[in-house]
């Protein structure tokens, strides 16, 4: 999997700097930690969706959530940028993302086989894939969130992006940074 790792870009979000959620987090008791991370994840997902271009014009984006997301609590509150509303939909077990009419696929915790199945199916369609639970970004999703104790980051799987039917704005590539532990 060396090729994937080498072509994987990551993006880091320091929790304490910037977002108001992060500031709240610094002064809040433990239960608020998860909430702050959820807000940060929701903002990141919104950012990723705003830089994603689908083949056709769309008034709204349908984001399907598969598995059991850890930080998906605030995804529903995500306001769509640029006038495109984001519709959240849970993907039922066994349901295919293409059949469900998903534009984006948010992958929570699930079995590795099911994850591979969903990703493979999504990449046949115009669907951007965001994996919450693959810090090394080896399962094949386009974006992999890496939730660390102090910061949130994402990696970009260039192989997956180049094979996918959706186009990712190159501006996101400007944020490219080597994954944690890599030069």
């Amino acid at each position: 999997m060396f090729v994937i790792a080498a072509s994987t870009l990551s993006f880091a979000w320091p929790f304490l700097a910037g977002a108001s959620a992060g500031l709240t987090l610094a002064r809040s008791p433990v239960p608020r930690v998860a909430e702050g991370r959820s807000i940060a994840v929701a903002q990141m997902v919104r950012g990723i969706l705003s830089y994603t271009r689908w083949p056709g014009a769309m008034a709204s984006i349908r984001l399907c959530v598969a598995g059991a997301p850890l930080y998906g609590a605030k995804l529903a509150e995500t306001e769509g940028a640029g006038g495109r509303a984001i519709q959240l939909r849970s993907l039922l077990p066994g349901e295919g993302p293409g059949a469900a009419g998903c534009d984006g696929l948010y992958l929570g915790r699930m079995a590795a086989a099911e994850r591979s199945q969903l990703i493979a199916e999504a990449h046949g369609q115009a669907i951007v894939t965001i994996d919450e639970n693959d810090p090394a970004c080896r399962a094949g999703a386009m974006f992999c969130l890496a939730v660390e104790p102090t910061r949130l980051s994402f990696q970009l799987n260039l192989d997956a992006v180049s094979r996918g039917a959706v186009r990712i704005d190159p501006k996101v590539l400007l944020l490219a940074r080597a994954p944690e532990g890599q030069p």
Partner: protein
Amino acid sequence: MSLRDPTLRPSRGGRLPSIRDVLSRVHFRVTLAAVMMAGITVLLAGLIVMRAYAYHNLSLVAQSASFTVEAALVFDDPVAAQEGVAPLTETEGLASLTVLRADGRPLAAWQRSGGGFSYRLEQAVGRWAFAAPVRAPIRHEGQLLGEVVVHGDAGGLERFVVAGLLGMLACLIVTAVAAILLARRLHESIAGPLQTIASVAHAVRAERALDRRAPPAGIAEIDELGRDFNALLAELEGWQASLRDENAALAHKARHDPLTGLCNRGSFEALLDEALGQAASLGRPAALLYLDSNGFKETNDRFGHAAGDAVLVEVARRITSLLGPRDLAARMGGDEFVMLLAAPADRAHALAIADRLRAAMADPIALPDGTPILSSLSIGIALYPDDAEDAHGLVRAADAAMYADKERHRQSP
């Protein structure tokens, strides 16, 4: 510059400037004004254009930064924003670059660091030249996320001004040298002919050299001045010549008898002294013949003064015809004449001359009315230094000898 021209001598205690000084000064002022005007115009125009370019450049930097940090701002990533703008900060003329979020908090900020006079000057000039920062909004999906604020400094402008001033200085030096050379050439063509005229004037005044003339000059006014000057000199020369002629005529009149054209008594006495001195220095004798017309008074009474004058003129002519080249004849007054035979003239030569004179007088003289008349001469001879040692004595001796001769005539006409 020294004053080499004597005609431009210092006067009234102050030093008068030479033509060259004046020309040099005028040239320098003209070129200084020209260079300053051209230089300042170009410098100002250049500054305005460069400032416009610098503004344009700043706005390009701001727009590039806006594009570059858009994603970083969307994901609220200060590190990525800082890294994104880092390459832009190498742009020249950039003092600071700040990426602001929509609420005004900075996401990334960069400021040129530096020290020293040059840096402070650039900052100061930059604050003056780019009082207002350049701002570029950052938009994503139609929403204003923040803005990029860029301040410029005067890095390029300062170098342009310094280079411009140095260029102007170099131009000034070149034009100053050119002005001096030009003034020298003009000086040669203007002051040269003037100095020639002045030196001619000086020679005319000091040496009375009225025949000197100013040469033609290459400049119309100076040439005209020279020609007028030459004409004036020619007139002066003419006046001087006529004065000389008049003086000579007056002097001749003062020394000569107007009727016969012979020397008068006064001038003869001076010339006699001179001739005797000459004879003494030669050690040879000189002879003086004193002549008196016999019967002149009767001729005068009988035929009138015109006849008497005619006789005197004819006698003088015959006397003159016998003179040697250095001999001298004079009318002493009335009907008395003298002949001075210059040394060497011994008694025999004097007697021979006297005989020839008597022979010459044997021819009758025709009066104005045609009447022929015979006129004889009484002749007295005195020799220097035998008969007298000085002029006065010689004349007296000759006069006495003449009276003796007249007595002989009277006794045997």
